C-alpha cells in the first residue's frame, strides 16, 4: 500500500513559543482542514485535541515549533518538532500529574501534568523523543475509517 502516493493533504504550521494568545490557532486550522477533507467528526476532534495540547506545550516551554499535518487514506499524521529546553526525563514527563508549569500556564487552565497523557490517549500511535537543550519531537498517528 503506497500510503504516500495517495496523499490527501500535506502542510506545516509555525508556533511561536511564549505567545500564549496564539495557542490554539494551529489546532483550529487543522480542525477546519480535516473537516473540509470530509474526515469524520470524532477523528477531527482527536486530531484537534492532540495538536492543541501540543501547542500549549510549545507556547509554555519551547522557543518555536513546526507542526506538520499529513493526511493519507486511512490515517492522519501530526508531527510537532520544537526548538527549546527539551525534556530531561520523558518517563517522568509522561506521568500524569507531573508538571513544571508556572503560574501563567496554570491561569490558562493547563499545567496540571495532563498534556502529554491526553496526547497519548487520543492518539492511536504516539512517539516522543527529546534532547535537553535542543528540543522535543512528537509524532502522533490517528487512524480514520
Amino acid at each position: 500500500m503506497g500510503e504516500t502516493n495517495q496523499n490527501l493533504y500535506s502542510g506545516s504550521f509555525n508556533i511561536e513559543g511564549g505567545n500564549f494568545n496564539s495557542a490554539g490557532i494551529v489546532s483550529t486550522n487543522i480542525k477546519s482542514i480535516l473537516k473540509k477533507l470530509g474526515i469524520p467528526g470524532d477523528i477531527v476532534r482527536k486530531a484537534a485535541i492532540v495538536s492543541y495540547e501540543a501547542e500549549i506545550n510549545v507556547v509554555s516551554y519551547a522557543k518555536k515549533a513546526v507542526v506538520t499535518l499529513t493526511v493519507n487514506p486511512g490515517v492522519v499524521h501530526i508531527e510537532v518538532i520544537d526548538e527549546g529546553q527539551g525534556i530531561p526525563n520523558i518517563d517522568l514527563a509522561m506521568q500524569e500529574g507531573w508538571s513544571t508549569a508556572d503560574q501563567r500556564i496554570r491561569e490558562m487552565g493547563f499545567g496540571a501534568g495532563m498534556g502529554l497523557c491526553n496526547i497519548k490517549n487520543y492518539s492511536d500511535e504516539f512517539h516522543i523523543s527529546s534532547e535537553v537543550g535542543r528540543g522535543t519531537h512528537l509524532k502522533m498517528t490517528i487512524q480514520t475509517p
Partner: protein
Amino acid sequence: MKLREVKDILEAEVIVGEDILDLEVKTAFGADLMSDVLAFAKAGSLLLTGLTNTQVIRTANVLDIAAIILVRGKKPSSETIALARELKIPILTTKYILFETAGRLYMKGIVGCLPKVENTSGRN
C-alpha cells in the same frame, strides 16, 4: 432542552450567541482545568467553568462544545468575546456558583456528559 431554557433556569446573561438560543443541549461538563475538559468533555455538551480567557473558547472549539456557561458571575475579556463570535460559540454568564449551576440544570434533566471516569487515573 433548548439553550434558551438554560438561560432562564440560570437567570443568565447571553454575552455571545443571542441568535442561536434554539440550540438543543442534553449534557454538560464542569471544570476549570482545560486539560480535564479535553480529557473528558463530549461534543455537543455545555461547558460550565469559571475560567474566562481565550483558551476556554479554543478548548470549546476543539471539542465542538455547544455553549459555554460562565459561573460565579464571571465576565469574559473582549478578546474572549471576539474569538467566541468568530468561532460561533455561545457564552452565557450566570451569578450562580458552579455547584448551584450544575444542580439547577440537573434538576431540569441535563446530565453529565459522562457519569464517572473509567479508572482511578481518570484516563479514557
